């Protein structure tokens, strides 16, 4: 009875999780970099590169998946009458946290989604990342329990809400008609990609389903710990199951620390990089995927966060804080500590007194 209820209540988020996992495996099979079928941080970093905001030649490509996710969420929200433009909840703080989350993610080499995808490919470094991610979420929960809040948002007009989705779609159309305008990697991860229409289509479906189901990588653990709600965590688990099964079928499953695709073995920075991501995203109210979805729903605070992530990616490659398969960047460790300090500062300065 209990079990039946659980599936009845959470089938959509579990289905979305399975589909995201399957999509990650499929996109890799069709050309995306290994264990990077679906990584919001990597894809935003590639978009930053394609706009020449950073000069790392190997990671420049206007990823259609991102456009699809935001557009899919936007269309689904419009259909479901959930397109509600709003803004005004500490925009500069959100921009900064978005940038910090991206810097942390690029020290580890992946957003929470890619972390699960890496675990599903047998990359044990990502288990250490997961430990850091959990630690970060628990720290974030501590502050939420002590009345942390970035403040309320206010209603905005339709145009404000549509600005970010339209901007992304326009940028994407420009890449189709004027390739020379944007940078495109000729080698490295940025040069590896699935066919454009397939990537866009999968993005659209994932965006639409994630909008309806509210799938979120930090929300899973947060809701389980704070409210004993296990729906979103089930979605998280379903992604892992789908990736594990998919990789096992395709023979891509290789357990170990060494020689994993686009990963390094410096455990301390893998751990702390993801601590920044878990902590920052808990303060922001959702993982990078969720921020894209909310931006599609017309939430300008989330759009600002995504822009912060793009800026963070540009900074990470320009200031050499991003890791590579060889290890952390020269300035990676110090940047990680700075980002932890930023999270702490934001946390302690936004505690509301009990009424």
């Amino acid at each position, binding site marked *: 009875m209990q079990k039946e209820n659980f599936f009845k209540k959470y089938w959509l988020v579990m289905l979305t999780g399975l589909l995201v996992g399957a999509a990650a495996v499929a996109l890799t099979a069709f050309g995306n970099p290994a264990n990077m079928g679906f990584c919001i941080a990597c894809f935003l970093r590639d978009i930053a590169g394609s706009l020449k905001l950073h000069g790392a030649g190997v990671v420049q490509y206007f990823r259609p998946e991102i456009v699809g996710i935001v557009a899919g969420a936007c269309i689904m929200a419009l259909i479901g009458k959930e397109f509600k433009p709003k803004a005004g909840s500490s925009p500069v703080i959100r921009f900064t946290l978005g940038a910090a989350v991206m810097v942390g993610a690029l020290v580890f080499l992946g957003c929470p989604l890619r972390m699960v995808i890496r675990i599903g490919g047998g990359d044990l470094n990502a288990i250490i990342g997961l430990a850091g991610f959990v630690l970060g979420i628990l720290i974030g929960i501590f502050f939420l*329990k002590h009345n942390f*809040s970035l403040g309320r*948002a206010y209603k905005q007009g339709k145009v404000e809400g549509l600005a970010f989705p339209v901007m992304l779609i326009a940028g994407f159309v420009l890449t189709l008609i004027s390739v020379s305008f944007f940078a495109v990697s000729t080698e490295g991860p940025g040069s590896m990609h699935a066919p454009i229409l397939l990537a866009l289509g999968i993005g659209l479906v994932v965006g639409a389903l994630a909008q309806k189901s509210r799938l979120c990588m930090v*929300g899973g653990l947060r809701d389980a710990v704070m*409210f004993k*709600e296990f729906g979103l965590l089930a979605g998280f688990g379903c992604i892992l199951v789908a990736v594990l099964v998919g990789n096992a079928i395709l023979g891509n499953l290789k357990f170990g620390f060494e020689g994993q695709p686009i990963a390094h073995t410096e455990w301390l920075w893998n751990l702390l990089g993801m601590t920044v991501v878990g902590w920052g995203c808990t303060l922001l*109210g959702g993982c990078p995927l969720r921020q894209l979805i909310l931006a599609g729903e017309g939430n300008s605070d989330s759009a600002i966060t995504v822009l912060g992530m793009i800026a963070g990616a540009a900074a990470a490659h320009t200031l050499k804080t991003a890791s590579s398969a060889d290890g952390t960047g020269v300035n990676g460790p110090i940047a990680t500590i700075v980002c932890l300090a930023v999270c702490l500062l934001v946390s302690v300065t936004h505690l509301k007194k009990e009424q």
Partner: protein
Amino acid sequence: MVDARGYSCPIPVIMVQKAVKDNPDKLEVLVDNQTAVGNVTRFANNNGYDVAVKELEDDEYSLALTKR
């Protein structure tokens, strides 16, 4: 009464969680997005409250929580 308008999840649920600690028989919650309606309703149902949702003007919702 809990006025969680303008706040995005999980804050509305946390506000309700704190409010039901005093074990009130009735509680009114105001929110302004469907995610919050769903999350607060689920939380309330799991914690011994029935919920009646009323849609107000301007995309706002009033949730009447009643102790079972």
